[in-house]
């Protein structure tokens, strides 16, 4: 067939069909994982600049990436998860009027245009994982309240932008400055709802050349729902600090403790960030560095495979910035583990691809487990850790497949 291929035609026809069905109130398309207790019943939806993602909430929008996208190191922009806290979220930005305001305890308050950001500071590139603090919260036992994410509130991208410390240097941070706050264009409709504002220590920014204000994501302008025109990148730390649609930066001479810093987004002040399941922590601190995690993206759970026939097993591993040193796979319930080959190293903040070949020894159900170790020897627990807000999950993951 020349010109329009059969496959292309079917895809196009399917798309038209889907639009018609959507318009006639047909049953919603569901996230594929019918057996997954967290994702079961959740619809697949298509948002602007996005492909089909798993709906968590409509307003404010929260969308989850299907696991199959984690068979590669870089998450496509259109598959990247979305998480907002307050509504309305920005739906229109004109760079002719957009400015990044820098003020507070500084010598020279700034109002930077996108041209300023691009031309007045060196452009820095960092590949880094952006993972929601509550990723996998739906899997906590005992269950906890909050966004009931599966495992898809994460993604990895190449970010390009200006160093936050260069921006602060231009403004001239005054003696006695303690923290810097970051605010975006998402503003609650009601003044009683706490605006989403996050803070970092001045030292966290000044000491880390990889904390940037990114205006490019995988070679493109950011999708609106991932923070167009610019967002903060805090490599190694949870996404709660990566403020989207960034518009205002303020330098403070005190610790900022409004709602989304306190009591929001805090973990138990214990070495594991965890407490006995069902109990409350004595003291808390703001969530920070990510725990070590690894996932199997393919085959998918409950896949049918051939006994005695090799299967390619693929996925990713990441941590809070030490870098992944080793990934191991077990096919006997965790009794024995073997080291699997890693993909290209894109930097210590990035997803690290891994892949292995596994041959089901015989028919029946088989469990595949994966665990990772980082460069400082941290790994994942055989038992899940627990805390009341449902953060830091990093238990050893597994899938079951059926061989025949």
């Amino acid at each position, binding site marked *: 067939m020349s010109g329009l291929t059969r496959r292309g035609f079917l895809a196009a026809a399917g798309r038209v069909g889907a639009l018609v069905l959507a318009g006639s109130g047909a049953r*919603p398309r569901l996230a594929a994982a019918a057996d997954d207790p967290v994702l079961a*019943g*959740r*619809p697949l*939806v298509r*948002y*602007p*600049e996005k492909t089909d993602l798993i*709906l*968590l*909430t*409509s*307003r*404010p*929008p929260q969308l989850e990436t299907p696991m199959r996208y984690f068979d590669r190191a870089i998450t496509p922009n259109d598959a990247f998860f979305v998480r907002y806290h307050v*509504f309305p*979220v920005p*739906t*229109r*930005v*004109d*760079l*002719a009027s957009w400015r990044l305001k820098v003020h507070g305890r500084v010598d020279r308050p700034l109002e930077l245009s*996108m041209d300023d950001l691009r031309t007045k500071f060196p452009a820095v590139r960092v590949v880094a994982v952006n993972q929601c603090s509550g990723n996998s919260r*739906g899997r906590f036992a005992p*269950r*906890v*309240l909050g*966004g*009931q994410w599966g495992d898809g509130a994460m993604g990895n991208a190449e970010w390009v932008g200006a160093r936050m410390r260069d921006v602060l240097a231009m403004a001239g941070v005054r003696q006695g400055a303690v923290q810097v706050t970051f605010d975006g264009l998402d503003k609650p*409709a*009601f*003044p*009683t*709802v*706490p605006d989403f504002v996050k803070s970092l220590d001045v030292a966290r920014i000044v000491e880390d050349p990889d904390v940037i204000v990114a205006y490019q994501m995988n070679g*493109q*302008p950011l999708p*609106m*729902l991932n923070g*167009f*025109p610019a967002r903060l990148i805090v490599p190694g730390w949870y996404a709660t600090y990566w403020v989207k649609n960034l518009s205002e930066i303020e330098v403070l001479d005190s610790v900022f403790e409004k*709602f989304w810093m306190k009591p929001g987004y805090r973990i138990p002040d214990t070495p594991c960030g965890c407490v006995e399941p069902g109990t409350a922590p004595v003291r808390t601190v703001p969530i920070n560095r990510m725990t070590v995690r690894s996932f199997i993206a393919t085959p998918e759970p409950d896949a049918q495979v051939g006994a005695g026939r090799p299967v390619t097993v693929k996925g990713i591993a990441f941590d809070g910035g030490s870098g992944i040193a080793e990934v191991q796979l077990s096919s006997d319930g965790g009794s024995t583990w073997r080291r699997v080959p890693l993909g290209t190293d894109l930097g210590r903040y990035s997803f690290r691809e891994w892949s292995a070949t596994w041959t089901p020894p015989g028919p029946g159900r088989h469990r595949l487990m994966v665990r990772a170790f980082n460069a400082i020897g941290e790994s994942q627990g055989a038992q899940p850790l627990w805390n009341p807000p449902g953060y830091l999950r990093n238990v050893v993951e597994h899938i079951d497949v059926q061989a025949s």
Partner: protein
Amino acid sequence: MKPLAARVVIAGLLAGLAVGPASAQEKQITLPPDHDYARLLAGPGREVTQTQCQFCHSTDYIVMQPAGDAKQWEAVVTKMIKVFGAPLGEADAKTIADYLARTYGRPR
């Protein structure tokens, strides 16, 4: 430059496109309405719960939560009032907490 970009956005909207031009100058999107999956289950108090809660957020925030006892749902309603400033009177707050405990209070 700007007038041209603006015209392209308007043309895109007229054509039913959800995304503005990829031009670096301006971006505009249109969000879909709340999904049907957020619709609350039938029961006494459903109407006031649906109306009051969706004033600020889609009710999939409720639908997705783990089943909880009356104490859990009462605490959620109290948090919405005290932390997020939901303008709920005492009677409505009780109706909503009761509805949630009754409807989303058991394994479903």
